[in-house]
């Protein structure tokens, strides 16, 4: 806690929030006034989950959580743990081996979902994974088996220390990155990025998609494993810090990160004993895929989110993700509980030939990048992508300025040169989201609504407020009563 200022010789400046007349009375006395642009928290009835009480109940719960004597220290501790993580890439291996997945077991992005409620791209990715695993001969057969559900299990990546972009489907024969935080020994996993266009994560499952996945399991995964074992652990946190300084926000733009990663593993690749043609193909694949490093940023964020989880009284968001149907968040003080609301449609730019009618609601675990304090949170540092997502450079600065209002801390490891190397806004606080009405800004890709389509665009989206109101109601129930007060 900051040391208190001297009250009785207060100096020439006062902060005010509320009635302007009182601020004016201070200005009339030649006192410098910093006026807060205060807006009272409002709870839209639409933001209340079924049976979640009324707006007054939400505001009362918010006050209860804010008055929790544990909150300040607990939230600061959760955020400290989040920023203390140093993610190292230590291995690349098949998901079956890394996560104990057996044939028919699939992980997916977002909160729990069933086949019946799954969106088009989620279904498409699951169909593709069935084909990849040889569990079906064609799409129709795969779909029928998935609908029947026999021998099939779906569970969220997040329940397996894993994160997956877009549909986020992980099946046993896909290879995954293994990241650890050496300090705590915690682990996180993510699949390898397939590139752009028609790809499984956007719900495409055409033969070329399956063929690329087979190449990734046959050539790319083992080669990266050999390279990483040769070069030793790769400090992903350090690369993220540098990519943010180089104009990547780490979610929609990973160009600098990908090239820095390639630079780091190339010597190991070359000396791995692989055929020169394979090495050339791998280098070309990585070099041409600006998003390759996203799948290393995400498990870095997963380690950060997990590190902050489970601090009683802490109001920091530890996961944000979507399954194409629901948006879900987890909060430190409520552990593994999901708070969900309907996923929204992203606003942004479409690839040639596509329009708003082609887009699916928001999907993917990649909002872990915003959870860890980059992505949309650091738009100020990524002017190159501002126009892609429909904004100007001042908009980007304003976006990040808003994000500081709802985050607990600033992460000096991810510093923003344009903001005089201010640390990235980190540790979204559900109470601040409710107080200000400011929702976390998420940069995202857009998947096609129809299974098999692939990517149709990229843009901006925010979570539904309902996730945050539900979380605050749940947090309030966990606040211990204050001794000596009525009702205690």
């Amino acid at each position, binding site marked *: *806690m*900051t*040391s*208190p*200022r*001297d*009250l*009785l010789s*207060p100096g020439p*400046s*006062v*902060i*005010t*929030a*509320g009635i302007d*007349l*009182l601020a004016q*009375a*201070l200005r*009339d*006395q030649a006192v410098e006034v*910093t006026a*807060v*642009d*205060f*807006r*009272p*928290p409002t709870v839209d009835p639409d933001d209340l989950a079924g049976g979640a009480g009324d707006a007054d109940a939400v*505001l009362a719960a918010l*006050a209860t959580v*804010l*008055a*929790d*004597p544990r*909150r*300040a220290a607990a939230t600061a501790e959760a955020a400290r743990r989040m920023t203390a993580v*140093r993610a190292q890439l230590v291995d690349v291996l098949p998901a079956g081996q890394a996560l104990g997945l057996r044939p028919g077991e699939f992980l997916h992005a977002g909160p729990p979902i069933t086949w019946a409620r799954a969106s088009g791209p989620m279904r498409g990715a699951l169909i593709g994974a069935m084909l990849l695993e040889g569990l079906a001969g064609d799409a129709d057969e795969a779909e029928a088996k998935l609908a029947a559900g026999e021998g099939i299990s779906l569970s969220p990546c997040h329940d397996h220390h894993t994160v997956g972009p877009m549909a986020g489907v992980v099946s046993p024969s896909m290879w995954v990155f293994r990241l650890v935080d050496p300090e705590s020994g915690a682990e996180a996993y993510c699949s390898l990025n397939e590139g752009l266009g028609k790809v499984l994560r956007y719900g495409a499952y055409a033969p070329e998609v399956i063929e690329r996945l087979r190449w990734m399991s046959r050539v790319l995964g083992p080669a990266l494993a050999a390279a990483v074992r040769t070069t030793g652990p790769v*400090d992903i946190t*350090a690369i993220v810090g540098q990519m943010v300084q180089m104009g990547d926000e780490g979610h929609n733009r990973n160009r600098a990160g990908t090239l820095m990663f390639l630079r780091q593993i190339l010597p190991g690749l070359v000396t791995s004993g692989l055929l020169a043609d394979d090495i050339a193909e791998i280098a070309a694949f990585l070099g041409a895929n600006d998003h390759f490093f996203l799948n290393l940023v995400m498990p870095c964020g997963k380690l950060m989110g997990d590190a902050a989880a489970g601090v009683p009284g802490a109001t920091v968001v530890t996961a944000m993700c979507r399954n194409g149907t629901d948006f879900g968040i987890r909060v430190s003080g409520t552990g593994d509980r999901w708070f969900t609301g309907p996923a929204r449609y992203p606003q942004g730019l479409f690839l040639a030939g596509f329009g708003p009618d082609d887009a699916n609601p928001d999907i993917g675990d990649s909002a872990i990048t915003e959870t860890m304090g980059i992505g949309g949170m650091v738009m*100020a540092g990524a002017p190159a992508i501002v126009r892609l997502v429909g904004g100007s450079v*001042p908009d980007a*600065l*304003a976006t990040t*300025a*808003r994000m*500081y209002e709802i985050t607990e801390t600033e992460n*000096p*490891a991810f510093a*923003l*040169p344009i*903001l005089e*190397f*201010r*640390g990235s806004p980190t540790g979204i606080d559900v109470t*601040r989201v409710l107080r*200000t009405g400011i929702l976390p800004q998420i940069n995202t890709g857009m998947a096609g609504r129809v299974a098999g389509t692939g990517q149709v665009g990229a843009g901006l989206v925010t979570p539904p407020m309902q996730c945050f109101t539900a979380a605050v109601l749940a947090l309030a129930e966990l606040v211990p009563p*204050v001794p*000596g*007060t*009525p009702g205690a």
Partner: protein
Amino acid sequence: MTDHITLRRGVYHDSVTLLRISRAVADTPGVTAAQVAMATPLNVELAVQQGFSVPPAGPDDLLVAVRGDDDAVRAGLAALQDALAAADRASVGARGVGATPAPRTVRAATREAPDAAIVLLSVPGAAVTGEAMDAIAAGRHVMIFSDNVPLSDEIALKDAGARAGVLVMGPDCGTAVIGGVGLGFANVLRAPGSGGTAVGLVAASGTGAQQLSSLLDEAGVAVSHVLGVGGRDLSREVGGRSTLAALALLDADPATGHVVVLSKPPHPAVADTVRAAARSARTPVSTVLLGEGGDLTTAAEQVCAAVGVSVPDWPRWIPDGAPTPGSVRGVLRGLFAGGTLADEAMLVTGPVLGDIRSNIPLRPALALPVGAGAGRVPDLAGLGHVVLDLGDDAFTAGRPHPMIDPSVRLGQIAAAGADPAVGVLLVDVVLGHGADPDPAGSLAPALRTAVTARDATHPLTVVVSLCGTGGDPQDRGAQASALLEAGAAVFVSNAEAARYAAGLLAAPTPAGTPSEAP
């Protein structure tokens, strides 16, 4: 000579920042060589050229190499820590180029105003906790003007404030004067340090603090600070948390030579705690309990005596041809903006006039009938002596306080003018920062209209309690003159005004004349 070499993982700074940090280490007295840089091959080679033996390292490691005697290395490493911390800190609150949005929360504002010691909150009571917690977390003192803050939130805020070492003034704290700066509704007081003992006030009540501080100022007593604590602070539940903290602050303040604790009757156990704290204070402490005998003017006179200042004649302006005591028939109608001033008026006039009904009654039996006080212009006809606190929540829900917006009171004045049963109209006018810039501008014409509406057999006499100082921006003398010209008798002492009003009505009704009063 010692060579200190460490590699730190996971610390990344750009090369320009590191160059500055490296220079800070190298400039430490006694350090003969130093390098702080990312361990790229080039940087490692430069360190080796300086004679350092560098262990295997990668470009993501921060290389720290310092040479000197043991003390110099220690000092150099301390300088490194400071420079790294400064590099992290320099940017906190930075806004970048171009216009950026105004702060939306108190926390963001505390970053923009690192030197502001006080946060003044007047947001709706249901929303105040978050903003106040932001202030406390940033080590700032908070004045909560807002009312309707739940009791449990008040306790939580005051406990959080105590842990952080900051004072939480309020909720429902209307007045504070700190270091000469008036916060909320506050009068302009003479600066301390001009000789004599300066008095510090701890006050639960807003207009009570304004009346007492204005009278002390009138008497030539300097007031060092007025710290508000909110009306519930001395309740059993809140337990005087802020009163005790404010008392301790004033006790430790070299500018304060005498402390006055001003409150409504506290819970007995809390009163004991406060009295014990007062006894153990190094500074003399007087306690003024409203409603337990005496009034604010008497209290001011006692404080004058305690600090060795002679009591002045409190200024008053009586119009020519004012009625003599006991000559006015009818009932008293008190229309107050200040709750404590209304309370005091009832305490002074009650013993003279008998029962006085009110929306803030002295006894529950004296409450207004259901419905009478609910409207914008409540109908008080036939209720006998009535004193209203127009600053009470029932009148301020959804509209500004009558110290800012006179419209509710103007309606009541017109109603009193139209009711021949009303013999004396008693109103307060509160001056100072935050209050109406010209209250007499609207009040004097309304009073004149009310007075001239009556015929000779049913005259209306107006008495004004004018709470303010000669330094207030409204110009107290001009305000008094305007009210005097409207036919009002004007007093700077609220107790004197009330006593004068009661005295006008006090004589028994002459035999054979039917009373107008119900």
